[in-house]
């Protein structure tokens, strides 16, 4: 083997197989001077650090996957039906990628803020990690409440009605309600009143917001308040703010 390019390749293979640099060079004394800096450079390249994936980057890829799957609609699949080991892997993933601090900071973030996607991502992972159907319903209720708080906070900050958050609030409650009907009767009896209570509060909150909203927003809020009222059980055309709603719960203060 006289060609320096082939000799270099052979040396690299020997290094890969565990020989030391000196051992390798000893086998090619005529070329050692030329080979040494090249092999040292190769060694530096092998030791380069791995870049750390960011939460946003990973989330974008996950969102891409979810979006594409939806578009392709090749197979209907329940996103949160992974086995236990995968749930654990996901938990490790989020701890590695996000870290406790980031997740904690994101908990109070509002839509449009930098940390808000991390908050949603964390919620998805928690839902993903929930083992029982009952736990999943509980989380849906919590998330629907959380969306309502975000909606009110943004509205009170003069940013109007965030339709995406409003939709998310209704959607979480809807999914909680649908899932509850599939639970055993004992669990159903415990959870249905909570959803009714949540819906009542949401209906009265939306009606309170309606008073201060723009004409276009008033219409949307009235429509959504009616949906909540139907879920509450009072089924009033005017939402739970009407006198005929039998619920005695009070709406959360708008702050």
């Amino acid at each position, binding site marked *: 083997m006289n060609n*320096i*390019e082939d000799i270099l390749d052979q040396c690299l293979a020997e290094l890969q197989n565990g020989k030391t640099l000196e051992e390798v060079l000893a086998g090619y004394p005529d070329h050692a001077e030329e080979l040494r800096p090249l092999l040292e450079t*190769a060694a530096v390249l092998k030791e380069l650090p791995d870049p750390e994936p960011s939460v946003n980057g990973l989330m974008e890829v996950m969102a*891409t996957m979810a979006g594409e799957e939806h578009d392709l609609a090749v197979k209907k699949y329940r996103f949160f039906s*992974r086995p236990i080991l995968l749930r654990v892997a996901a938990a490790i993933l989020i701890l590695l990628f996000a870290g406790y601090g980031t997740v904690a900071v994101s908990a109070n973030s509002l839509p449009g803020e930098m940390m808000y996607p991390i908050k949603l991502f964390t919620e998805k992972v928690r839902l993903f990690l929930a083992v029982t159907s009952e736990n999943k319903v509980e989380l849906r209720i919590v998330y629907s409440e959380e969306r309502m708080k975000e909606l009110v906070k943004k509205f009170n900050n003069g940013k109007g009605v965030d339709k995406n958050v409003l939709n998310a609030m209704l959607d979480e409650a809807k999914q909680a309600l649908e899932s509850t009907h599939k639970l055993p009767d004992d669990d159903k009896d415990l959870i249905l009143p909570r959803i009714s209570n949540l819906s009542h509060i949401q209906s009265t909150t939306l009606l309170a917001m309606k008073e201060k909203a723009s004409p276009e927003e008033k219409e949307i809020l009235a429509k959504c308040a009616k949906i909540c009222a139907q879920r509450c059980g009072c089924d009033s055309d005017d939402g739970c703010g009407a006198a005929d709603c039998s619920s005695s719960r009070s709406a959360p203060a708008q702050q």
Partner: protein
Amino acid sequence: MKDSDLEKVLVNAKKYDRQALALICEHYYPKMLKFMYYRVHPSKAEDFTGEVFLKVMKSIGTQNGNFEAWLYKIARNVIIDKARYDKARPEVEVPEDFEQGMTNGKDGTEKIDAAMDINYALSQLNEEQRELVTMKFILGMNNEEICEITGKNPGAVRAMQFRALSSLRDVMIKKDG
């Protein structure tokens, strides 16, 4: 993930099974990010990696043959497409946030310094050389894998790795001098 497990996962991923797709993503995302990080530029790595996975999602159903080679062929095409639009030569300057987002910091500052030097040196190589260096030395691929991805013959790969290492060494000596 074992090779046998990966094969099963791939079969399901081709049917757009969500669980299998998530596993593929978890397995290959860090590798692809590393490839883009050194092959293109740290600031563009995530953008390019996301683009690769978008293309993977669009065509995994019809994928045949060696999956990893197919994946890196997609990555090459993404780089070529982006370069056409942006006329992007790899940037020479080291970004201010380069030190952020580095792991494996066993030796702390020394490793980051080495990465900064190498990234500058890589930016001085031509596209083919940079690609080969990233695949062979940074990702640890063997010559056969590189030949399959790039379509080059083994002799050309050996010749190019010699020239690429020589150029890198020259750039690093110049920079230090």
